[in-house]
């Protein structure tokens, strides 16, 4: 384990997609075990930040650095970052018919273990863990043998993201609007899943529009993103303020 205090430190990051600058000089530091929420109006660059951290090839880093566990990761590809413990919960998870959820998860888990020099998980252990985690987030067993997200409702897809997160046990989970499209019950089960990992010193970057999720998972910090920069940071009360007043008052100043 790294003794590095900072899990993630982003410095003066500038990112463009198709030559359009989306992230423009962003700074952010996240320590082990912390939960940060990133809020902001549509088009402020929240999803781009998430995709950039996960290594999406269309996000072109123009300037700045991303350090994870003290190491620069901008040159690492997508799967290498995942194996280092970075997980992205997708805003719109894709459907992959013909690939079953459980086969996908097992392949992913074993790829990560292999790159970390660990042995493959046994079938028995895998199934037990899968069953336990499915229970935590209230997912029916029958979903595990269906195609990845195939014919899943919006809420089911989000639950599936959380299931993958629980199975892969990342150090840093970036959840891109995982709360959108969830009803209150689903929100609670998702929050359950997150809180169970939080206890084990996992860190989270929660990208969200509303403070609903944040009432179940109290963040250590809340940041407001606008035009590709963090324009305000505060504690969890900032989220409540935003809920009352919107973003206008911050952006105008």
């Amino acid at each position, binding site marked *: 384990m790294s003794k590095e205090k900072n899990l993630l430190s982003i410095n003066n990051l500038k990112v463009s997609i198709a030559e359009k600058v989306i992230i423009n000089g962003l700074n952010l530091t996240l320590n082990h075990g912390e939960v940060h929420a990133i809020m902001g109006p549509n088009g402020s660059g929240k999803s781009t930040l998430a995709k950039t951290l996960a290594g999406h090839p269309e996000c072109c880093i123009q300037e700045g650095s991303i350090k994870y566990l003290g190491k620069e990761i901008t040159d690492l590809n997508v799967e290498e970052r*995942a194996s280092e413990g970075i997980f992205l919960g*997708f805003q719109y998870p894709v459907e*992959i018919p013909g690939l079953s959820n459980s086969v996908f*998860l097992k392949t992913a888990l074993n*790829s990560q273990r292999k790159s970390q020099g660990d042995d493959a998980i046994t079938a028995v252990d895998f199934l037990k863990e899968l069953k336990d985690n499915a229970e935590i987030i209230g997912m029916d067993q029958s979903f595990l043998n269906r195609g990845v997200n195939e014919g899943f409702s919006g809420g089911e897809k989000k639950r599936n993201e959380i299931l993958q997160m629980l199975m892969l046990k990342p150090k840093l989970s970036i959840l891109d609007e995982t709360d959108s499209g969830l009803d209150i019950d689903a929100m609670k089960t998702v929050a359950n899943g997150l809180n169970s990992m939080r206890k084990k010193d996992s860190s989270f970057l929660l990208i969200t529009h509303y403070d609903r999720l944040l009432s179940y998972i109290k963040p250590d910090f809340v940041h407001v993103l606008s035009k590709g920069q963090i324009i305000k940071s505060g504690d969890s009360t900032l989220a409540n303020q935003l809920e009352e007043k919107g973003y206008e008052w911050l952006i105008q100043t």
Partner: protein
Amino acid sequence: MVDSNIMKAPINLDNSHLKDYSLSLVETDWLNNLKKETFARFKTQNIPSKKDEEWRYTNTEPLIQKCFELATKKSISNLKNNKSFTQKNNNDNIFIYYADGKFCFMDKLPPYIKTLRNSDDQVNVETLLKLDDKKIHSPFTDLNTLLLSDALIIETLKNQKIDAIIHIIICSDIEQNISPRLLIKLRENSSIRIFEHCLTSNSCVINSLTEINCEKNSQLDYFKIIDEQEDGYHLNLSNIRLAKSSAFNLFSWDSGAKISRNNINVDLIEENASVNLNNLFSPNEKLHIDNQLKIKHIGEKCESSLDYRGILKDQSTGVFGGTVYVDQGAANTQSNMANRNLLLSDHARINTKPVLEIYNEDVQCTHSATSGHLDEEKLFYIQSRGIGEPDAMNILIQSFASELVEKIKNSHMKRIFQEYLFQKMQ
């Protein structure tokens, strides 16, 4: 129709030799007469070329060259010494091999399977063989008849539900022209499963002709794997006629040949008949696969569904030509035709042309064709879980094929296709 000046065929056919050879293969009078008629017509046939709409994307020249070059070449394969010929099966399925112009089998065949050579009811065989006479003849179908020395006849009884899977293995290990003829007739309310496996280990030409007739309420599940040598050729014409409430379901996988050409004509002649065609075609290197399908809705309330998926690697090429024709009287027709293609290299090519020809207003018909590289967002999703790019690509290709294989209900056949998928896509 074909332009007459295409007649300038590139091959120098020794007609008389072919005729003598053809007649030497059989002894029965009626068959000799059929061959003489066929030969008379064959001489006047035009050789198909790229000028024919149906052959637009397939260069017939090497195919014809090879096909006729091997036609009169007498050759005996080494298959008789092969273990699988002498081994007795340990399950209830039936194995029939087609080698060196004959259908062979180890076990005693059940009464619903006969061959031309061992059938004692020649009148019935004659009727079945001549069934296709009204159809359009091509030089290839005529050549099949000329080279015919045996035929496999599967004819179920009324109400007969057959559990055994009939494996038909068409094979060769030497360079030869292979002309199997299959005649399949399902009587009322019967059902059967057939698995045709084309397996060659030399540059052969398979030129097969299959006639299928499904009577009222019958169901035929047909499985086919084409696994040929890269320098082989594969030609097949299947004519399928479906009577009231009968069903024909096809699952096939074509790995390609130098040229693999598959024509399937389905006539839904009476109400409530249904046809389901599921196909994977996966050529690599410079292989070429050409699928030509004609679905004709004549009866009311019939259903057709076509799911053709191409996985094209390297410099391979593929063709999908699908026509669904809905007759004036075919009210309440339901038809879905889809051709999806994965192009795995910048040099792979697909020509796709789904056509709907509809003469009745009361129908639900859809058709779609998509071609493209692997979905970038799906790749990113898989990689973001820690799976490397080559594996992620493989997973996506496999899932594309697997989605179709998973539709197979029969567990024995599903396993065969899954194993084939595993073997092909690793």
